[in-house]
Structures are given as structure tokens and as C-alpha cells.
């Protein structure tokens, strides 16, 4: 798609991630390349051919990572290299090239050739080991081969299991690599990702600048994703809270059956909105295979309209009253002060005044149902906009929770995530000051009005702040 001139330019840093089978090479590449389509598996030999992951900006490659198969017959390769006529250190790379040329059709060395090729094409070496398992001298064969390649190199300690043999590994690897870093592809944060890139930039003088550019690009990209996430959450909030479900009816007035049916499809629609919003977030963060993971989030099991969801993500009654009151429903009464003592009795009186305890806690009378257009002869039953005071916080809490999990999720992760209830409390993430700003928008949406531009701006700002707090 882009001009081929630029793509052909071969002058960018390349890195080959190599190592023993099953030590997390693909996991590391997957997490660095933000690509969750990489196959990662228990079975050694999951990766069979090398695969390049270029970081492209407008089609121009800034650097490229290569995922490679693990060493399978390292001893044979090394013995072939050692059997050649001795050469000076600067010619050793040529011997490796000779090995590749001599064994291109040899089935036994498919894996070795796949992994050596990018290195001999100028890629830096990133040697991955699992430091949760003890060091063994058999690794020396692989490291010896890599030394023959004569390319800049570093080692990454990945901790797959519970044990820790980091010190042992460090002293062994120190003989072969100038730089040894610890990086856990599953748990790595964005910061750690950037720090690793920074280490990679030091492998070769000429690479420092392009990798710095790459770091800047990735940081900008991260910011963009955060903005897009917040925009997406806000637009779903507006869409959902102002949504009115309509249906033509035949009779003079709606039957309870019709009403129930409509309420049901109203809820279904809102649940669908939430699902779409979640998918949108997943695509913003490049987690495209997530729908393949069944019950990725236990969120799926806690229905949007369930009591459970309300108790996890909603506000407590007292918080709700404070919010409702300070946002103008009972303006200027100093409810915050009154509730300072936490009097439940007072709380319920005010609760009644704000809109009925039922409207805050339950979902039974959460939406207005109206019959419209009786005079023209066309009768229409409408449900919405959402009247429940707590609902916006439940929805918002769920979206923030889901988005933060997705945003933090490593692209190397292939498992489910458990919902840890203790960790997430809407009340704590969005304090009562923030809620004042949010409530302005919620109030106008409840009334069916379009929120003011500046209110929406403030809304976004608050959301961004709380979202950043979750990352």
C-alpha cells in the first residue's frame, strides 16, 4: 500500500528473539508487538518459522522484531562450526553463513536456519531464558553458536514458574552477554515495555536514535488509545442513558404484557450497546482474539441489570444521595454536611425526596414508560431514558473496569481474567467531587436533554483522570 521505496529500505534496527524451545520467545514478541494473534503454547516447537513484526509508522519501518523457533539441534550446529578450519574472530560470521548455505535443504536444521538467518541479516540477538528453572551447561552450546554470529546481543530472563534462579542465570549469562534484563511478558507494564526497548537501543550505536523514535511513537500511541477509550466510554454513556426504545401498539393503551416485552427489549438493547462498547475497547487496544477466550471477563456472568452488578459497581445509597443532592436535585441544602454523621434515618428521608429509594436501588421502576400519539391515532409505547440514579455509575464502573483490564492486558496472555471485586469500587475511583461533574451530564440525559458541550468536556476530563488512575 505504501510506497515500496521506503519499505525496501533495509536500514532499520532488527532484533531476533531466540532461545531454547518453550521459554516464552513468542510471548515476549507478542507483548512487545502488541499482537495477540501469535500462537503461544505449552508444546515446544509451537513456532515453526520465523515471523517478522515491524513497527511501522505510516508504512515506514522503525524497527523489526523476529519471533523464531527454538534451537533443536544446537550441538550438531556447533560441532559443524568447530569442525571448519579455524578462522579469526571477524570471519566467524562467514562460517555461520556457510553453515546456512550448506544446510538449506537439510530437514534436520530447519529450525536453526530459521533462527540464524535474521541474525546473519543484521538482527541483534535477544536470548530468552526461563529463570524460574535452574541453569544447565547445555545452554552453553546455544550461547556459543550465538557468539559465532558476532551480532550485538542481550539476554532476557523470563520467569515462567514460581521458583527463582535469577542469580545463577545472571552469573552464567554474564560470560556471554553484556546486558541481561528481566522481563515478564505476561505481567509487563507499559513502562517496563519502554524500558526494555531502551535497553535494546543500547545494543548498537546506530540503533539508539531509531529506537528512541520508536519509544516516542509507542508513547504517543498509548496516549491516543487512552483518549479513544475515554471517548468511547463517554459516547456509550450518552447513547445508553438517553436511549428511548419505541414500539407501535395496537390497542388504546399498552397491556402489561406489551409493557413487559418492551422493557425487556429495552434492556436487551442496552446490554447490546455495552457489548459493542467492550468490543470497541478491545479493538482500540488491539486485543482482537479476546472473543475467542470464553468468559474472558467474569463481567459477562454478572449481568448489567443484576443486583450483583449494582452492588459491585454501583454507589452505596448514602453516596448516591450525596451525589444526587449535591448535583442540584436538592441543591444548597448542605447534604454532605448533614450526612457527615451517617444517619441512616436522615438518609432514607432524603432518599425519598431525591427520587425514591426504589429508583436508586432496584431496577423495577427504572425507566419511564409512556404511550405517545394518542391524538393522531398512531399509538407508540416508549421506554426510556433511564431514570435509575445508580445506573449511570453501574454502567460507568463496568466500562472503566473492563477498559482498564483490557488496557493493561498483555498481548501474550491467553487465559481468562478473574474479576477481583475488592479491587474495584466505583465509589473510590470516582470520588464525590468527580461525581458532581458527572452528575450534570447524567441529569440532562435523564431528562432527555442534550448535555452541554462544556459539561461533556468536563465529563471526559474526569473519566480520563479516573481511567489513568486504574492503569
Amino acid at each position, binding site marked *: 500500500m505504501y510506497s515500496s521505496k521506503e519499505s525496501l529500505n533495509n536500514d532499520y534496527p532488527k532484533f531476533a528473539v531466540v532461545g531454547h524451545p518453550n521459554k516464552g520467545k513468542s510471548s515476549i514478541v507478542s507483548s512487545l508487538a502488541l499482537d495477540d494473534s501469535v500462537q503461544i503454547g505449552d508444546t515446544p516447537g509451537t513456532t515453526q518459522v520465523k515471523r517478522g513484526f515491524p513497527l511501522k509508522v505510516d508504512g515506514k519501518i522503525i524497527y523489526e522484531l523476529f519471533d523464531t523457533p527454538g534451537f533443536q539441534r544446537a550441538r550438531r550446529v556447533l560441532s559443524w562450526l568447530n569442525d571448519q578450519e579455524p578462522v579469526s574472530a571477524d570471519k566467524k560470521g562467514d562460517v555461520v553463513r556457510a553453515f546456512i548455505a550448506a544446510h538449506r535443504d537439510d530437514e534436520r536444521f530447519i529450525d536453526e536456519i530459521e533462527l540464524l538467518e535474521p541474525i546473519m541479516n543484521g538482527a541483534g540477538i535477544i536470548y530468552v531464558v526461563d529463570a524460574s528453572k535452574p541453569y544447565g551447561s*547445555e545452554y552453553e552450546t546455544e550461547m556459543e553458536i550465538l557468539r559465532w554470529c558476532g551480532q550485538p546481543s542481550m539476554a532476557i530472563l523470563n520467569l515462567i514458574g514460581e521458583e527463582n534462579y535469577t542469580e545463577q542465570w545472571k552469573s552464567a549469562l554474564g560470560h556471554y552477554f553484556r546486558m541481561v534484563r528481566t522481563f515478564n511478558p505476561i505481567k509487563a507494564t507499559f513502562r517496563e515495555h519502554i524500558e526494555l526497548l531502551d535497553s535494546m537501543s543500547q545494543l548498537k550505536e546506530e540503533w539508539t536514535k531509531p529506537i528512541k523514535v520508536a519509544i516516542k511513537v509507542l508513547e504517543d500511541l498509548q496516549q491516543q488509545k487512552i483518549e479513544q477509550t475515554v471517548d468511547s466510554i463517554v459516547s456509550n454513556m450518552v447513547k445508553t442513558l438517553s436511549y428511548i426504545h419505541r414500539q407501535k401498539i395496537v390497542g388504546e393503551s399498552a397491556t402489561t404484557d406489551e409493557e413487559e416485552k418492551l422493557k425487556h427489549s429495552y434492556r436487551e438493547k442496552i446490554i447490546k450497546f455495552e457489548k459493542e462498547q467492550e468490543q470497541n475497547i478491545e479493538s482500540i487496544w488491539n486485543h482482537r482474539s479476546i472473543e475467542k477466550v470464553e468468559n474472558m471477563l467474569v463481567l459477562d456472568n454478572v449481568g448489567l441489570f443484576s443486583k450483583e452488578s449494582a452492588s459491585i459497581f454501583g454507589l452505596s445509597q448514602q453516596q448516591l444521595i450525596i451525589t444526587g443532592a449535591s448535583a442540584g436535585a436538592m441543591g444548597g441544602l448542605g447534604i454532605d454536611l448533614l450526612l457527615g454523621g451517617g444517619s441512616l434515618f436522615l438518609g432514607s428521608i432524603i432518599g425519598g425526596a431525591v427520587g425514591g429509594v426504589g429508583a436508586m436501588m432496584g431496577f423495577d421502576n427504572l425507566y419511564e414508560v409512556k404511550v405517545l400519539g394518542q391524538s393522531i391515532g398512531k399509538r407508540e409505547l416508549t421506554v426510556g431514558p433511564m431514570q435509575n440514579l445508580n445506573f449511570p455509575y453501574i454502567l460507568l464502573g463496568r466500562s472503566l473496569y473492563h477498559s482498564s483490564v483490557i488496557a493493561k492486558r498483555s498481548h501474550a496472555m491467553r487465559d481468562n481474567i478473574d474479576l477481583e471485586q475488592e479491587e474495584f469500587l466505583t465509589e473510590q475511583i470516582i470520588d464525590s467531587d468527580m461525581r458532581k461533574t458527572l452528575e450534570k451530564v447524567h441529569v440532562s440525559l435523564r431528562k432527555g436533554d442534550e448535555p452541554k458541550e462544556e459539561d461533556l468536556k468536563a465529563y471526559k476530563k474526569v473519566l480520563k483522570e479516573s481511567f489513568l488512575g486504574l492503569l
Partner: protein
Amino acid sequence: MQIKNSKISIKSYLNLLELLNEYRGTHEENRLFALKHEALLQNPKKMLLAWMQKNEFRKTQTLESLSILQKLSILGNFIGLFSLIFGFIAGFGLLSYSGHAPVNVIYYLLFAMFIPLLSMLVSMVSLLSSGTVFNALSLFFPLHWIETVLNFFSFRDKVDVVNTLFSDELKKWMFMSRLQLFSLLFSVGLLFALLVIVISKDIAFSWSTTLNVSNMGFFKLLACIGFPWGHTLPSAIPSVELIEMSHYYRLGENLNTQMIQNADKLGAWWKYLAMVTLFYAIFLRFLLWLATRYGYQEQLEKDFLELDGVQKLLREFNTPFVSTESPKEEKHLEIVKESDEQVSHAVAKVYETIIGWNFSNDEILLVNDAKGISSSNISTVGGNNSFAEDQKVAKEARAEVILYVKSWEPPTMDFIDFLEELLANDNVEEIQVYPLGTVGRNYESDEREVAIWKRKIQGLKSKKVWVIDV
């Protein structure tokens, strides 16, 4: 694909609105497009128009809004023509001179100056005021009612559609600028009627009022009104003499014969009246019309940039597209489930041969001690051994062989090569591969790790080799 000027028309507004409903492009496509039109990056409107032109073919639905727009413009032309004719007829009525009663210039001034000035004032007030005031004021404009009624008849159902396409602010400017245009046409009709009558017949003008106004006072008033052209066109200001002569009340109820004789003199009024019409009803209105056109255009362009999806598009034009994924699809490895085949659930106490793959001699002795296994023939393979050393071990092995392996190190082809050599030795009756965990875990291995070994060994399809899973 040259976009010469970036003036947004209502047509491009609707086009983009409809296109965005169907197609918004991906970030990659949109950024690529922007890079190809780099010169336009400074001009978002031009860029959007170019983007629209390029993607117009993607629209699948027929342009309903455009047909509505056409109807609207036909309706507009119709009302415009109607205004012109109406102005002409009104002028004719005003100036109808039967030969008996002369035309009262004050009536004419009312239509050619006072009403236009008043309506321009109302227009301006409603333009400068916000929504509700405008809505209230617009009820006073006949045009509002004419349009409402006509709209209702011409496309009953579609009025709603049209209404939702434009913002209130834009609708206000649309309405106001049309209002100015129609008023302008009305005044042109009026002027036209004046000229036609002046050319085609004698016409006598007079003035009369119940108010007590002196000739001199009236002259001053008229001179004041005629101030804008008084200097350049003095003949288009009535003289005191003319005013005196045409003061109607002096003549009484009957027509003065002298006055009829002086009809042509009295007719000199027409220049003045024509100038009043030209200046107040036409020139000023024209200015106001230009102003509303300008306001309308500004609003249209503002709304154009605020169409749903436009901001996203502009952002995508301006943000570099970053991709990190591999362009190469991966052929995913089929993973076979392991079974219980070739799995042994017990370990013997004595073996003829003990071999440790990637184990040192000492390590093997430690395992033997911990597991209570013994043998007189212990050797190490793999690791830093040479192939010749490994081959020797494979050749010398006999009877039951137990092969220690590190459970966490998945079987490599190097290992399989050795195993095959061992299998080729006919003295070997049985090989038991024993995956051992780390010393730290008392050699206990992970189920997951053993499963990997099982799958690999099962793949060899040999009845001689087993995996120990205890």
C-alpha cells in the same frame, strides 16, 4: 481530483453526512489518503471534500436528502417569483392613479421605507438573539407560515427528516437569508411597478396627514430621508415648492384644476420615491441579505466540521498510523491431546542401565539416592558431551534402561536423535523416560511438563519407550 475552492455547499454537507453514515474508512486508509494529499493537511475542509469525492462511489443508498433539497429549492424559487410578482402588484395598487385622487406619497413611503426598515430591525434582533426569542419572533414573519404550510403539503413526512439534518442554528440562518432574499425581490417588484407606471402614464403625487406638519417641516423630513443621495443627486430631492404644491389638504375635497395641469411637475416626485425604494428597500436589504448569506455560510462550515464522524476523520488524517503486527499470517500448529499410551505409572528399584540426559554424574547419584533407584551402569549424555561419547553410551546400554530428563526442558530434536540411537540398539529391551522436577521441588515435576514429554514420546510410535508418570 482538484478541489479548487473549499467553500462548503449545502449539497456537500448532505453528501458527507450520508457518506459518513455508510463509510468512515480505517485509520490506515484515511491516513494514507491524507499523506497522498499532503498539501491539503493545512486545510481540513478541502481535505474532507477531497476525501468525500474519492469515496463517493461507496454510497449505496439513493440520496433522499438531496431530492428533498431539490424540492426545497424549487419551493424557494417559487416563493421568490411570487414575492417579485406580489411586490409588483402591491406597487401597482399603491400607485393606482385614477386621474381623480392623486397618490399619497406617505403611503408609498410606508411600504418602501418604514416597513422594510422595521422588518430589517426585527430580522437583526432575531439573528442576534438566541433560540427562543428567534422562535417567538419568527412567528411574526409571514414567510414562516407560508413555508410551514407549503412544506406540509409538499412533503409531509419528509419535513421531519429535513429538520433533523440541520442544526437549529443553521436552520435559523437559512430561514433568515431566504427571508431577506424574498423581501428584496418584493422591493424590486415594487420599484419595477413604480417605473412602469411613471413611464406608461401621468401620475400625480400629493401628501396629506392628519398631523399638523408644516411644508417646511415635511421638506426637512424628506431631505433627511434623502440624505444618502442628496449630494450626488439633488434633483431626486423634492423642492419646498413641490411640497407646497402637492400638499393635499389645501386643495380641499375637490381637485384643483391647476394641479391637474401641473401634473408633470407633481410627477417629479417619482425620482425621489424611486431613490427611497432603491436605497432603503433594495440597497439596505441587499446588504442585510449578504450579511445573512455570510452568516449562513459560516454556520454551514462550522456544522460541516461538526458532522458526526468528521472529527474522527480529521484526527486520523493528522495522526500517523502505527502498526506493530506481523503482516505474515501464522500457520497455527495443531496440538494433539495426550493419551495414556506408553505411560508407565510405576518406577522400578533396579535398572540395568541408568542414563541422564543433560545430567552430570553427581546429579544422577543424587536422584538415585532420593528415589531409591540403583544400577551398576550409569552414564551421562547430552550437555557438553560429544556425539561420539553419546553414541558409545547408546551402544553399550542393555536390558531395562531408565533415562532421566529434566521435566521442564522440553524434548529437543537433539534428544530425539539420541533416543533413536538407543532404540536402534537391540540389546535394549525397554526404555523408561523419567521427567524429573527441580531439586528445589524434590524432583517433583509439573503435570503440564510431563504432558509435553508424553506427547513427544507417543509421537515416536515405539512400543519400547515409555514415560514415567507417578
